[in-house]
């Protein structure tokens, strides 16, 4: 009897569990195997190659927006992949910045004591969150940007830009040979300001004297590069767009597809971020504000030193998942033909090569990689703030 207790045998339940799991493995494995066999048969019947050799073949199709050099006659499918990925990252990163700015503004506005402001912000959130993103993208693209005047009726925007139904044409900066010095001065100024700030904070901890870095920061970040800029002979000029008969010459173009996608993503995601921000600020107990006031902090200090750090702990995790959503939602670009990863790769490349399995697998892997990296960083952050909480 005691021997049985020392060496516990597997119970009937455990055997059932093992059998169940074995069955699951067999079924899933069998399904995958059957799918693979079928796919191989079907592909062979359709005469479609398999494997990743297509990666180095010449693409032969045009892409309307390329951040890296790309030509339809010489570039490969692999190059097209990178072009699409960069376009996705471009619209996603700009969207993240703009949506954060708009979302924080609206989230704070929703908490305003001003009835009109809080209700306008609330109306914005309700309206935007309850209308599908795809509808909003189509609206901005077809109903707003595509109904702008045509080339001849181009709207001139002060500062040398033009707006018409082919896009927004901006002056293009042309950097001179000495420009790297200016950029170097700017980087130097930023680094020096950061060092100064750390030093100022250490001094405050030692002596209690508050740091006055603002003027130094202004001098280092704004004045220093300006001085270098003029010393180097103002190495910057602009190519201004001009309306010609059939097109616009010079300048740089922002595609209407890009603009519509960016506007729609920003407006849509901002509504969700606003809710995240509101919830985060409300999650800070009112006693914290009162305690800070009792300690003699002014309203700015209360916000900056007490409320925001605690609110950020609640805000950051859902905020990151909104950033991820924005990145994934940027794949709706395919509906209006903005050449993002899905449109270029899972669209054009798939249609030309017919290699659905490989192309879809690569596309999914990219998004999966992005979200895994983000959730990894999120876990790191979560661990950091959890220690701070004690």
């Amino acid at each position: 009897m005691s021997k049985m207790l020392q060496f516990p045998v597997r119970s009937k339940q455990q055997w059932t569990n093992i059998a169940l799991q074995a069955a699951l493995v067999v079924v899933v494995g069998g399904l995958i195997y059957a799918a693979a066999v079928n796919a191989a048969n079907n592909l062979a019947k359709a005469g479609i190659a398999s494997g990743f050799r297509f990666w180095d073949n010449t693409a032969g199709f045009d892409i309307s927006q390329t951040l890296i050099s790309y030509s339809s006659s010489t570039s490969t499918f692999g190059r097209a992949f990178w072009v699409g990925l960069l376009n996705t990252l471009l619209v996603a990163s700009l969207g993240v910045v703009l949506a954060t700015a708009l979302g924080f503004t609206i989230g704070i506005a929703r908490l305003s004591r001003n009835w009109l402001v809080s209700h306008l912000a609330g109306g914005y959130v309700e309206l935007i969150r309850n209308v599908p993103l795809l509808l909003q993208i189509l609206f901005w693209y077809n109903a707003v940007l595509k109904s702008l005047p045509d080339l001849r009726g181009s709207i001139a925007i002060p500062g040398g830009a033009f707006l018409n139904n082919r896009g927004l044409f901006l002056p293009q900066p042309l950097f001179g040979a000495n420009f790297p010095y200016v950029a170097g001065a700017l980087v130097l100024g930023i680094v020096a300001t950061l060092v100064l700030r750390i030093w100022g904070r250490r001094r405050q901890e030692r002596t209690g004297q508050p740091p006055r870095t603002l003027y130094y920061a202004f001098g280092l970040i704004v004045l220093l590069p300006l001085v270098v800029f003029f010393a180097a002979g103002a190495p910057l000029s602009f190519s201004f767009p001009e309306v010609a008969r059939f097109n616009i010459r010079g300048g740089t173009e922002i595609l209407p597809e890009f603009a519509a996608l960016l506007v729609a993503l920003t407006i849509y995601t901002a509504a969700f971020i606003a809710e995240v921000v509101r919830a985060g600020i409300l999650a800070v107990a009112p006693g914290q504000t009162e305690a800070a006031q009792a300690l003699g902090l002014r309203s700015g200090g209360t916000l900056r030193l007490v409320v925001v750090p605690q609110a950020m702990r609640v805000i950051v995790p859902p905020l990151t998942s909104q950033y991820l959503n924005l990145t994934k939602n940027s794949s709706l670009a395919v509906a209006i033909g903005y050449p993002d990863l899905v449109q270029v790769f899972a669209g054009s490349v798939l249609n030309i090569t017919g290699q659905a399995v490989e192309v879809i697998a690569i596309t999914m892997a990219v998004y999966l990689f992005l979200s895994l990296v983000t959730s990894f960083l999120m876990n790191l952050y979560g661990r950091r703030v959890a220690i701070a909480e004690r």
Partner: protein
Amino acid sequence: MAATDRVYLRDAPAKLLPAPVASTGVLGWVRANLFSSPVNIAITIICVAAIVWIVPSLLRFFIFDAVWSGADREACLPSEQHPEPGACWAFVRVWSSYFVYGFYPISERWRVDLFFVLLALGIAWLAWLGAPRRDLGAIYFFIALPILSYILLSGVPMIGLPDVPTSLWGGILVTIVVATVGIVASLPLGILLALGRRSAMPAVRLASITFIEFVRGVPLITVLFMASVMLPLFVPDRFAPDKLVRALIGVALFASAYMAEVVRGGLLSIPRGQYEAAQALGLSYWRMMVLVILPQALRVTLPNIVNTFIGLFKDTTLVFIVGIFDFLRTIEAARGDPHWATPVTSVTGYAFAAVFYFVCCYGMSRYARNVEARLARTHRR
């Protein structure tokens, strides 16, 4: 003692204090909420200016200057009587049956109407928390309704309902079908996945986690592409499912991963004692889950389920991209009709679509909020 020595004696009536600032009533409310400080006054003025600028022009465009009837684009183009025509509602009226049914044969449209009625019945039964026999309602919604709907919509020639191929379905019908299949399939699948994720069996747990994290990590578009392009490759030729079914499979798998996380949240909120009590009573795993844990977990998480469903409902528009004629796609198709090509057609079509989606989603979110408030009340008690 003279009276003047007693300095504390008042010899004149006290000055009248000014009337207190109104802190109640309309004036007090306005003062506290709109004009409490100079900054607030400025913000209020800016907001009022914005409203005065935007709202009347919106009203003019969508109501007062709108064209309500007409046979073709002539009615909505600028003319003598209408120098600046507003929204072209005549376009929506002419195309409205297409927006609801797609190309569903006109003689068979009663079947779609009946489907809508049956669905509304099922939703009402489940959504009304005080309804009688909600367990029967669940059976009706998750088992009887799908079978009935399939018979009704797709047709069984044997009982006198001619076949209607899914290529003819369209509009709100397809949107509702996709959303309904999404919820009917995703809730049970999501519950299974959530239980799998918390299972003690490593193979089951690993399979669930892999599926959930994989699906949640990729955009719905790629899942739909996968369903529409890769699925036909994975099955023998003769079983290749039709286009709508492929999209439905994609949506159902996608939604179930999200539903699994919502259900898992509900499971996490159930205190350990409930599990232990159920085990102490000698209940098996499934009995414990079905009789004790899930009823509580689903109840707690009902608002989140509804919110997930709102997301799913909005996401149904994505089937548009793989070539299914859902409501948004019918709007796009009608918008391109040369008979109705006017500068305001697109805006009108999109506005109509936006109103439809807004009414549905906002209604659902109000419902979720009510349930939440009700749950909070019962918890406090």
